[in-house]
């Protein structure tokens, strides 16, 4: 209420004038602030502008304040020249330091602006990261220059704690522990309860593993392949005995599990006269159509490479090679076991079907793998 009253006591100031005064005041403040800021930045960047001033300051101040305490000030006359030279050196160093810190920080600001603009205008990855890198490295350099040139370096020496801890500490601890445990009654029972409880905790944790489904059961031994499954490509096309020409290849799956990792099979066709399959497999490759598991027996990658002329399947991960003509026996690289073969037959429609599962469990080896 009283404020309102005060305002009414100054009727000569109409609103327009008031606004004008306020604007002028703001403007003046702004000018003063920016002048001060600009002066500071300019002095920081170009220390020679304020050189005279600071030299006076140095002369006035006690030299030992600037100099390090590791170089104690001396009152001897012969040292006077040396001290002066050192002082000038320190001053130059400080000016140079201020300049470098200022430049680094200016670069940092430029980097930040680059990042900021790039971000808000949807700039490229290079602008964004480059701006960020410039911003951060400029800032970092400012700190390091500060540490190098604008900090009085002192080498500090501190004693370490004694390497041999006093035996008394330990004895006191043991004493305190024993005293405390003597206050416990029926200590045997406490131990039993704690041990049993911890055992139960362990059992609980192990039981929870069941939720994670850790029992492999038969999963490592079997695939969907069984007698009668038609061979299909991933998009569901059936494969006939003459779909492939000698020298071509296709990836097939059992019709019930298209796109399956474990059941993926590579079908290649070769000239039947070249086949060197063991006798037990003489009818596994009708018309030269050979099907092998496509999962490498070494480390489980897909055996993706087929060399038509060398009749060789190869795994791109560790360069194991398998001889297609001889039941995919390993011929090079680190794999030690052949790729499992899938026996095939041609049904009455001319489609290729599996005559059974793989000859051995597919995929990389494990402890219980039958050989």
């Amino acid at each position, binding site marked *: 209420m009283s404020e309102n009253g005060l305002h009414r006591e100054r009727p000569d100031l109409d609103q327009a004038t008031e606004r004008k005064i306020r604007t002028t005041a703001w403007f003046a403040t702004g000018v003063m602030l920016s002048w001060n800021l600009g002066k500071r930045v300019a002095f920081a960047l170009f220390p020679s502008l304020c050189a005279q001033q600071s030299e006076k300051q140095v002369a006035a101040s006690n030299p030992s304040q600037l100099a390090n305490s590791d170089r104690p000030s001396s009152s001897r006359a012969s040292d006077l020249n040396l001290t002066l030279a050192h002082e000038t050196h320190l001053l130059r160093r400080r000016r140079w330091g201020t300049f470098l810190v200022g430049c680094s920080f200016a670069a940092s600001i430029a980097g930040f602006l680059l990042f900021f603009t790039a971000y808000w205008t949807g700039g*490229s*990855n*290079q602008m964004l*990261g480059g701006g960020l890198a410039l911003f951060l490295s400029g800032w970092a350099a400012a700190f*390091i220059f500060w*540490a*190098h040139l604008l900090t009085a370096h002192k080498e500090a020496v501190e004693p370490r704690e004694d390497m041999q801890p006093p035996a008394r500490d330990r004895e006191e601890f043991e004493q305190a522990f024993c005293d405390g445990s003597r206050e416990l009654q029926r200590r045997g029972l406490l131990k039993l309860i704690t041990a049993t409880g911890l055992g139960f905790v362990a059992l609980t944790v192990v039981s929870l593993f069941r939720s994670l489904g850790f029992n492999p059961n038969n999963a490592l031994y079997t695939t969907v392949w069984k007698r009668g499954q038609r061979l299909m490509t*991933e998009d569901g096309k059936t494969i006939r005995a003459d*779909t*492939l*020409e000698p*020298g*071509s*290849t*296709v*990836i097939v799956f059992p019709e019930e599990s298209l796109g399956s990792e474990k059941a993926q099979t590579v079908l*290649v066709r070769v000239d039947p006269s070249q086949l060197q399959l063991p006798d037990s497999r003489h009818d596994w490759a009708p018309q030269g159509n050979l099907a092998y598991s496509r999962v490498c027996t070494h480390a489980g990658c*897909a055996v*993706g*490479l*087929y*060399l*038509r*002329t*060398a009749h*060789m399947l*190869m795994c*791109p991960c560790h*360069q194991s*090679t398998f001889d297609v003509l001889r039941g995919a026996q390993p011929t*090079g*690289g680190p794999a030690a076991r052949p790729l499992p073969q899938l026996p095939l037959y041609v049904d009455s429609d001319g489609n290729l079907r599996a005559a059974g599962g793989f000859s051995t469990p597919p995929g990389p080896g494990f402890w219980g793998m039958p050989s």
Partner: protein
Amino acid sequence: MQIYLQQCAKCHGPTGEGISAAVTIAGPNLWAEDDPGRVMTALEVGPSHMPRFEYILSVAQMHAVSDYVAHTIAQIHLNGGDLSRGGELFRRNCAACHRTAVRGGGLVFVGTNAPSLTGKSAALIAGAIRWGPGPMPRFPPSVLSDHQVASIVDYIRYVQQPASPGGSALNWYGPVAEGFVAWVGVLLMIGIVMWIEKGGKG
């Protein structure tokens, strides 16, 4: 057709199968040359080892040859491919040897090498898919349809000069090159700490 058999079949074979560019003297496969304009240009300019037919054949004869090549010999029609589908097929059938960035090199262990596909023309790629030069398996129409081949070609053409939005692609060598760069970064950092401590006395 007469002219084709006389002039072109020596290198490109009577049905245009060539043996692709894997063997230097044999002419490229023409199965994918479904663009008469491109055949015309080849006849006039004579790319690579091919002779220039500008002065041997009349323009009308060249037109006849290019029509014959484009409409009778070309079996793969390279239009209407689907880029994404091509990518899937590429990763399934081709990437194992030619690498996902078509820079080749998958077969280096067995002494031969899957060539880099950068700079290869669409026709050459499509022809190689069907014909299977060198140790490369063949992909007959019963395995990959024309549309699928066209899609793969589209994808390969895209990946020949892929964008690398993240910066230098290190020639698409993958983690090995990245590891080297990471160590350059670590050594740079070590250089920086040396500067920070100016070596130091420890």
